[in-house]
C-alpha cells in the first residue's frame, strides 16, 4: 500500500533533479532561519508553507503530459497578456511602479505568470512551425516576446522584463536562429545602448552607476552593494559560522532574507558554502539541459532548455548583483530567498521539466 503510494508520488518525479532541488531548498531554509535573526521560526515556517504549496504544484505539473502543457501555452500566454494590459490600465501603484492588479479577492503580479507562459508560448510556436523555419517565423516569435516584455518594462520592472526576455530569447536561440542574426542583433544592441540609457528611469541609471563606483553614494544607492560585499568578503574561506555573521545579524545587510540572502549565506558559510551552492546550481542546470537534450518533441526540447537556462540566469544575476559585479535588479536567489511567488513559479518550471523528463518514453513509443 505504502509502496503503491510512493509509486504514485514518485512516478513523474525526476530523481537526480529532485535530490538537487531538495538539498538546495533545505539549505535555503537554514539560511532563512539565520537571516530572520535566529531564535524565531516564523519565517522558516512561513517558507515551509510556501514550499509545501510549491512542491504540490510541482507534482501536479509533473503529472501533466507535455502535450497537455502545450495546449495550455496559448491560453496562459493570452491570459497573461490581457492581465498585463489590465495592469497598465488599472494597476495599483506601489513604490512608484505599476506592477500589481487587484482582482477583488487577491492581488497578483501578472509578470510572474509570464515567466512560465512566455517560454511555453514560444516553444509552442516553434513546434507549430517546425517544418522549415524561416526568418519570418523568428520575427513573429520576436514580436510574441516583445509584447509582454515591453509591457513589463513600462511598469517599470526592468529586472523581471530582462529575465522574461532572456527566457524567450533562449527559446529562439535554441530553435536555431542563425549566428549571423544573433551577432548582428548583438552589435545593433550595443550601438543602441546610449539610446536605451536615455530611456532608463533615474533610479535605474543610479543602480548601474552605483555598480561602477559604489563608494560614490555609500549611504544611499551604494549601501546595499557595499554592505553585502563586506559581508561576503569578511566570511573568508570557511565563514563565520551559522547564526554568527555580524553583518547579517546586526542588520547591516539590507533585504537579508530576500534578495540579499546570499550575503548572509556567504558571510556565515564562507567560500566553501558558496562553492557548494554553485555546484548545486550547476547540477540542476546540467540535469535540466540533459532532459532538454533527450526530449522527444521540439516543444519539449525548447521548453526544457529555456527553463533550465532561465534558472541559470536567475542564479547568476542574483549572485552577480549581491557580490557586486552586476547592477542591483530585484531578482531573488532561486530556491534560497524567502518568498512564495518566486518559489512557486520556479518549482512549477521544474514540474514542467519533470513532466518532459518522465513522459518522453510514452511519446516516443
Amino acid at each position: 500500500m505504502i509502496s503503491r503510494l510512493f509509486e504514485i508520488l514518485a512516478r513523474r518525479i525526476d530523481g537526480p533533479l529532485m535530490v538537487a532541488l531538495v538539498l538546495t531548498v533545505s539549505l535555503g531554509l537554514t539560511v532563512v532561519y539565520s537571516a530572520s535573526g535566529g531564535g524565531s521560526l516564523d519565517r522558516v515556517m512561513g517558507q515551509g508553507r510556501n514550499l509545501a504549496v510549491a512542491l504540490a504544484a510541482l507534482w501536479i505539473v509533473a503529472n501533466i503530459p507535455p502535450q497537455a502543457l502545450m495546449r495550455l501555452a496559448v491560453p496562459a500566454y493570452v491570459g497573461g497578456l490581457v492581465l498585463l494590459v489590465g495592469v497598465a490600465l488599472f494597476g495599483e501603484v506601489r513604490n512608484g511602479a505599476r506592477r500589481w492588479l487587484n482582482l477583488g479577492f487577491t492581488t497578483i503580479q501578472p509578470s510572474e505568470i509570464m515567466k512560465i507562459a512566455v517560454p511555453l508560448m514560444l516553444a509552442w510556436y516553434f513546434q507549430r512551425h517546425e517544418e522549415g523555419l524561416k526568418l519570418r517565423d523568428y520575427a513573429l516569435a520576436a514580436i510574441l516576446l516583445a509584447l509582454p516584455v515591453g509591457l513589463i518594462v513600462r511598469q517599470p520592472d526592468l529586472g523581471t522584463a530582462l529575465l522574461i526576455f532572456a527566457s524567450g530569447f533562449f527559446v529562439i536561440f535554441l530553435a536555431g536562429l542563425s549566428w549571423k542574426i544573433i551577432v548582428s542583433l548583438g552589435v545593433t544592441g550595443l550601438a543602441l545602448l546610449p539610446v536605451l540609457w536615455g530611456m532608463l528611469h533615474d533610479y535605474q541609471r543610479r543602480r548601474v552607476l552605483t555598480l561602477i563606483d559604489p563608494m560614490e553614494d555609500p549611504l544611499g544607492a551604494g549601501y546595499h552593494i557595499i554592505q553585502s560585499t563586506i559581508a561576503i568578503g569578511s566570511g573568508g574561506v570557511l565563514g563565520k559560522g551559522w547564526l554568527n555573521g555580524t553583518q547579517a545579524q546586526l542588520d547591516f545587510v539590507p533585504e537579508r532574507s530576500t534578495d540579499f540572502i546570499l550575503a548572509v549565506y556567504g558571510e556565515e558559510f564562507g567560500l566553501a558554502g558558496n562553492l557548494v551552492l554553485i555546484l548545486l546550481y550547476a547540477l540542476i542546470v546540467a540535469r535540466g539541459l540533459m532532459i532538454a537534450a533527450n526530449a522527444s518533441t521540439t516543444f519539449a526540447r525548447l521548453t526544457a532548455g529555456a527553463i533550465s537556462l532561465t534558472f541559470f540566469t536567475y542564479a547568476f544575476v542574483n549572485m552577480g548583483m549581491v557580490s557586486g559585479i552586476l547592477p542591483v535588479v530585484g531578482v531573488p536567489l532561486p530556491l534560497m530567498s524567502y518568498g512564495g511567488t518566486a518559489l512557486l513559479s520556479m518549482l512549477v518550471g521544474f514540474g514542467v521539466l519533470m513532466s518532459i523528463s518522465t513522459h518522453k518514453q510514452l511519446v516516443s513509443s
Partner: protein
Amino acid sequence: MVGQALRDPRRELTVFRNRLTVAGVLALVAFGLLVSRFVWLQVVQREYYHTLAEANRISVVPVVPNRGIILDRKGQVLAANYSAYTLEITPSKVGNVEKAIDDLATVIEVAPRDRRRFKRLQEESKNFESLPIRTRLTEEEVARFAVNRWRFPGFEIKARLFRSYPHGEVASHAIGYIGRINEADVRRIETAGLTTNYKGTDHIGKLGIEGAYEKELHGTTGSEQVEIDAGGRAIRALSRSEPQSGNNLLVTLDIELQKVAEEAFQDYRGALVALDPSTGDVLALVSKPGFDPNLFVDGIDPVNWDALNNSPDKPLNNRALRGQYPPGSTIKPFMALAALHYGKRTPEYAISDPGHWMLPGVSRPFRDWKPGGHGMVNLHRSIVVSCDTYYYGLANDLGVDAIHRFMTPLGFGSRTGIDIDGELPGLQPSTDWKWQRFKQKWYAGDTISVGIGQGYWLSTPLQLATAVATLANGGNAVHPRLVRGVQDARTQEIRELPIRARESLSIKPEHLELVRAAMIDVTKPGGTATRVGQGAPYLVAGKTGTAQVVGMKAGEKYDEKKVKERHRDHALFIAYAPADNPKVALAILVENGGHGGSTAGPIAREVFDFAILGKRPERKQKLGEEDGPND
C-alpha cells in the same frame, strides 16, 4: 504537409544539441566567473573586508573621567562634582525646536532663563550636538518626562556629573570656573594633541585654578568597545578601559579667611591679596565684586552674561592680578630702602618740611598732602606720617633709573609668576621705557611723582603683596602660588608642589630693620593707620597709600565730599603681622575708598584678627566713616 520541405529530424536535433552545448558552456563560464569573484572577495580581499565588518559593528564610546576636586588648605571643598539629570535636545532630530520646547513646558517647567541659555548654546554649536534645555531635574520631573517621552523625539534624559562651587561668589576669581568647550578651546586642545583625551568631554576649565590646572583636574578618558547594530543601538559591551579620574588639587587658600576678607569689603570694589610671607602661598585673593561661577557651568544665559559683562563694576575683571593702579604712598618703605641702599640718605638726616617742594628751575611747587607740612622729618618719620616732601627730594636725588633698578628685583614692573593666568605686569618706569614707549626724553619732573608712587608707576595688588612679603620675611623675593599640592586620584598620595626658589635680595638687615620699625609705628598712635593697631594683641607693620583717580590742578584742594564717588581716590594699604614673627603679608586696594588708613586699614585688621587670633569681626561701623589722618 504536401509540398512542404521534408523535415530532417536528425539534423534539427544536432543543431539543438549544439546550441545546448554552447549555452551549457556559457553557463559554466558564468559560474566560473562567480567562483573567481568569490575567491577574490573571500580569500584575497578577506582581511580588508574583515576590517570593514569589524569597523561596522564595533563602536568605541569614550568614558569621561571624573574631574578632580579642589580643596582649600584646611580640606574644605571649593569645587566638587555631583550627579544630576539633564534634559538634552539634539536640534537636528527635532523639526521645530521652538514648538517642541513649548510643548515641553506643559510637561515640566522651562524657565525663560533656560530658553535663553539654550538659544545661546544653539547658536554656538553644531546642530547634531546634544544641548541641555533643563539641568538638575528632580526625580519627579524625570518621571513626568519619561511618561511623555514618546511625544519628544530628539529629547533625551542624561545623567551627568556637574561641577558645583559650594561657596558661590567667594574666591571666584581664584578658583575660576569650567564652561562648555567652545571653538577656541577645541583649537587649543588640538594643538596640545589632546583631542583623544577630550572625546566625550564637553566642559573645560576656563579661568583661575580650574583653567590653569586643567591638565591635572581633567583626568584620562577611558573607552568602551560596544557592539552596535546598523541602527547604532548598542547590543553588548565588548571591552572597557576604565577612565582615570582627574587629580585633586590642594590649594593654599583658607576659604574662611577669604570669606572674612570679602565681607570686610562690604560694598566697596577692590582687591586684596594675603600671602604667607615665608612661602608665597596665597591665603586669600579677593577681587570685588565677584561673580557666581555656578552660572557658567551649564552655559551662562545671555541676560546674566550681559549683566556681568556690561556692569560698570566689571565683576569679571580679576583686580588682584589685572588691576594696575598707581601704588601711591605704599611704596615709601621701598623708596626708603633704596635711599639707604644707594647711600642717598642716612637715618639721621632730616628735612624741615614746609608742605611743598620745589624742583630747581621749575616754578610749580610739588605739594605735600598735608598743607603746611610735617615739620622736621627724618627717614623714620617720613614713613610714619607719610611725608611727601621727603620723597620728592629723595626721588630727585636717586633719579628714576636707580629707582627702577632697585624696584625691579622686588617684583615691580613684571609679572610675579602666580600659577593662574591673566596676570598683568604693571609698570616700573625708566628713561629707557619712556623713550621706547613715547620717543620722549625723561624729565626731572617725571621722577618727582614717581617718588610718591604716582605718575607713570603702576602696580597690581598682587605685586604689592609680594613686595611687602619680602619686607616681612627679611628680604627674600617670593613667588605667589595658589596650588600647593596634587592628590593622585588613584593612590590618594599627595604630591607637594615645590616652592619656587626664593632669591635673597641684597638688602642690608640694618636697613630693613629701620624701615620695619617705622612701619610698626604707622599703626601706632601718631601714625597714618592708628586704628589698625588699636588694641591688637600683636604688632602690625603697615603703610597707607592713596592713588589719585582724577588729576588735581596745582593749588586745587581735594575735597572728598565734593567729588563724585567714582572719581574719589583709591585707598591702599600694605601690611604684615605679627610684625615680630610675620604670618600674613597683605596688600589691599579699595577703589574710590578715599584714603588708605580709614578704608583699607580696617579690612586689614579684620583679616589679621581672623588669621592670627581666629577672631571673627563684630562690625560696628561702615568703612571710611571714622576720621583719621589723610594718607
